C-alpha cells in the first residue's frame, strides 16, 4: 500500500494548542512520526527579564493555564531562597493545598479529554461536570477558577476560614465518591479498555532513556515523584502513596492518574485538618540579592524545573522554565510509531500535553556560529518586519 503523510496540526480538532505532528501512514498504521515544536512561542522568559519579581509572578502564572500554581510556586521558591525569606508554615500549607487541588482539577480535566479523544463523550461530560466542584473550591478560596494568584512574595495572599474549609471538605467527599465510580468505569467498560490497553506502549527502559516524567513515567513503572524524592513545601509531613503501574500503556496512565486523585483527596483532608496557625506572609524586599537558584516541583503533568538568576535589582537577570511536557514529548514520537492512526489523539493526550508551556526559542546563527542575544524591543521589531515581508502589517492594528 502506498504511503501518505498526514499533518496532525498545527490546527486540528484533537489538539487544544497549536503543535504539529507529521505522520507517515501505511493504510491505517503509522510507520513514522515527527514532532515539530514552536507554534506557540510567546517570549515569556525574555518578558520576565523586563518586569519586577512581583509582576513576574503574574506572568509566570500564565505560562500554563492548568498548572498555573505549579509554575508560580516553583518560581517563588527560587525567589524566596535567594532573598533568604522565612516563609511561614501556614503559607506553605496553603500552597500545598492549592497544589493538590490543582492536581485534582488537572487530572479530572485529563480524564475528560481522554474520554473525548476516544469518542466517549459521556465520560467527558460527567468528569467535567464533577470538575466544576473542585473549580468552585478554588474560586471560593482564591477568587478565580484557573489563575488563582494565591502566591505572593513571602507567603500567600488569602487565608482560609473555617467556613471555606467545611465547603472544600464537603466537595472533596463528593469527588471521592465520583472518582471511585470512574475508576470502576475505566477498569470495566469494554470499549474503553479496547481503546486504551496496549496502546502507546512505552517500556521501562525507553521511558528512562527518553526522560519521561510525571504520570507518563510512573505508568511505565518508574517510581519517580518529586514530592517523595525531594519533599518541598510540607509534603514531607503528609502521608501519601507513590502510585506506579506496570502496563506501560495509555490504560496504565489512566489508572495512575485516577489513583493519584484518591491520594490527593487524602492529602487535602490531611492539610485542612492540620492547618498550622500563624501569619500567612512575611515581607520580602523588592531587590533580590545576586545569586542563582534552581528548584523543581511535581506539577500534575510531571517534574517542572525553574532556574532563576538575580543580580541585586528588582528584576531577574535570567529565568528559565523547563515544563514537563517538553520532557514527555520525546516519548510521544516513540509511542506513536507502529500504532494506529485512530490512537494518535489518545496517545498525544495521554501525556497531558501543555504546548504553550513548552515552546521556547533559541536564536542561533549557524553562519556566525554564535548565539545572539536580542532585547525585547529588537525581538518585537524583528517580528513586525518578518510579518511585513509576508504581507501582514501589524503596526496598523
Amino acid at each position, binding site marked *: 500500500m502506498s504511503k501518505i503523510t498526514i499533518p496532525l496540526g498545527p490546527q486540528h480538532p484533537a489538539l487544544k494548542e497549536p503543535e504539529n505532528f507529521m505522520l507517515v501512514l501505511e493504510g491505517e498504521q503509522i510507520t513514522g512520526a515527527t514532532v515539530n515544536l514552536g507554534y506557540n512561542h510567546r517570549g515569556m522568559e525574555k518578558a520576565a527579564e523586563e518586569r519586577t519579581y512581583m509582576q513576574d509572578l503574574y*506572568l509566570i502564572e500564565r505560562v500554563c493555564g492548568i498548572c498555573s500554581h505549579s509554575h508560580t510556586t516553583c518560581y517563588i521558591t527560587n525567589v524566596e531562597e535567594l532573598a533568604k525569606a522565612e516563609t511561614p508554615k501556614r503559607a506553605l500549607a496553603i500552597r500545598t493545598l492549592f497544589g493538590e487541588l490543582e492536581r485534582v482539577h488537572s487530572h479530572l480535566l485529563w480524564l475528560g479529554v481522554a474520554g473525548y479523544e476516544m469518542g466517549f463523550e459521556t465520560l467527558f461530560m460527567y468528569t467535567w*461536570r464533577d470538575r466544576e466542584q473542585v473549580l468552585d473550591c478554588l474560586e471560593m478560596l482564591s*477568587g*478565580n477558577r484557573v*489563575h488563582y*494568584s494565591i502566591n505572593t512574595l513571602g507567603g500567600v495572599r488569602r487565608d482560609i476560614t473555617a467556613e471555606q474549609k467545611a465547603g472544600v471538605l464537603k466537595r472533596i467527599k463528593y469527588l471521592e465518591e465520583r472518582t471511585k465510580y470512574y475508576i470502576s468505569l475505566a477498569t*470495566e*467498560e*469494554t*470499549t474503553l479498555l479496547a481503546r486504551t490497553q496496549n496502546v502507546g506502549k512505552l517500556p521501562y527502559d525507553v521511558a528512562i532513556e527518553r526522560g519521561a516524567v510525571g504520570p507518563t513515567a510512573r505508568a511505565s513503572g518508574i517510581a519517580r515523584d518529586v514530592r517523595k524524592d525531594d519533599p518541598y513545601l510540607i509534603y514531607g509531613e503528609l502521608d501519601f502513596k507513590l502510585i506506579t503501574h506496570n502496563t506501560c500503556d495509555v490504560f496504565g496512565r489512566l489508572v495512575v492518574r485516577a489513583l493519584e486523585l484518591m491520594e490527593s483527596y487524602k492529602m487535602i483532608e490531611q492539610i485542612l485538618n492540620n492547618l498550622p496557625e500563624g501569619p500567612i506572609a512575611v515581607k520580602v524586599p523588592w531587590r533580590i540579592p545576586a545569586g542563582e537558584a534552581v528548584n523543581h516541583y511535581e506539577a500534575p503533568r510531571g517534574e517542572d524545573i525553574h532556574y532563576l538568576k538575580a543580580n541585586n535589582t528588582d528584576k531577574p537577570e535570567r529565568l528559565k522554565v523547563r515544563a514537563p511536557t517538553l520532557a514527555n514529548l520525546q516519548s510521544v514520537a516513540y509511542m506513536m510509531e507502529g500504532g494506529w492512526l485512530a490512537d494518535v489523539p489518545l496517545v498525544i493526550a495521554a501525556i497531558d500535553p501543555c504546548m504553550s508551556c513548552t515552546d521556547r526559542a533559541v536564536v542561533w546563527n549557524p553562519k556566525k556560529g554564535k548565539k545572539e542575544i536580542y532585547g525585547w524591543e529588537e525581538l518585537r521589531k524583528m517580528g513586525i518586519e518578518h510579518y511585513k515581508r509576508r504581507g501582514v502589517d501589524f503596526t496598523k492594528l
Partner: protein
Amino acid sequence: MIHPARVFREVIKHLFRKPATCAYPFEKAKIMPDFRGRIDFDSSKCIGCQMCVRACPSKAIEIPLSKVQPPAPAQIEGQPPVPAKKKFDCIMKLDHCVYCAQCVEVCPKKALIMTQDFELAHVDRKELRRHYT
C-alpha cells in the same frame, strides 16, 4: 472484570435529572463572594502615589490628574492657606487587565476596589478603556 456498557445505569438515572449546565446568557451565572472581577476606583480617596501603576503586571492602569480640579477650601482667618487636595482620575484598560487585584493590595488608601463584575466582553475595543473620575 469486563462489563460492556458500564455506564448504562448512570445514563438512565440522568434521564430523570435536571441538567447540570445552564443556558448562560439567559440565566445568571453564580459567582463566589470573593471573586476577582473588574477593579473600581474611588477618586475621593486617591492620593496619586502611582503605586498601583508601578505594581500592575500588565500596565493596565493610568492615574492622570483630573482635568477639573476642586477649588481650594476657603481660607480661615488667622490660619495659613490650605492647599487644594488634588483630584485624580483612573484609566483602567480592561483589555490589558489580568484581574490579579495586585493593585488593590498595594493601594495605601484603598482607592481601588475589587468588584465581582465579570461580564466585561465588548465588541468595541474603545469601550474597554474605562475612564473613572
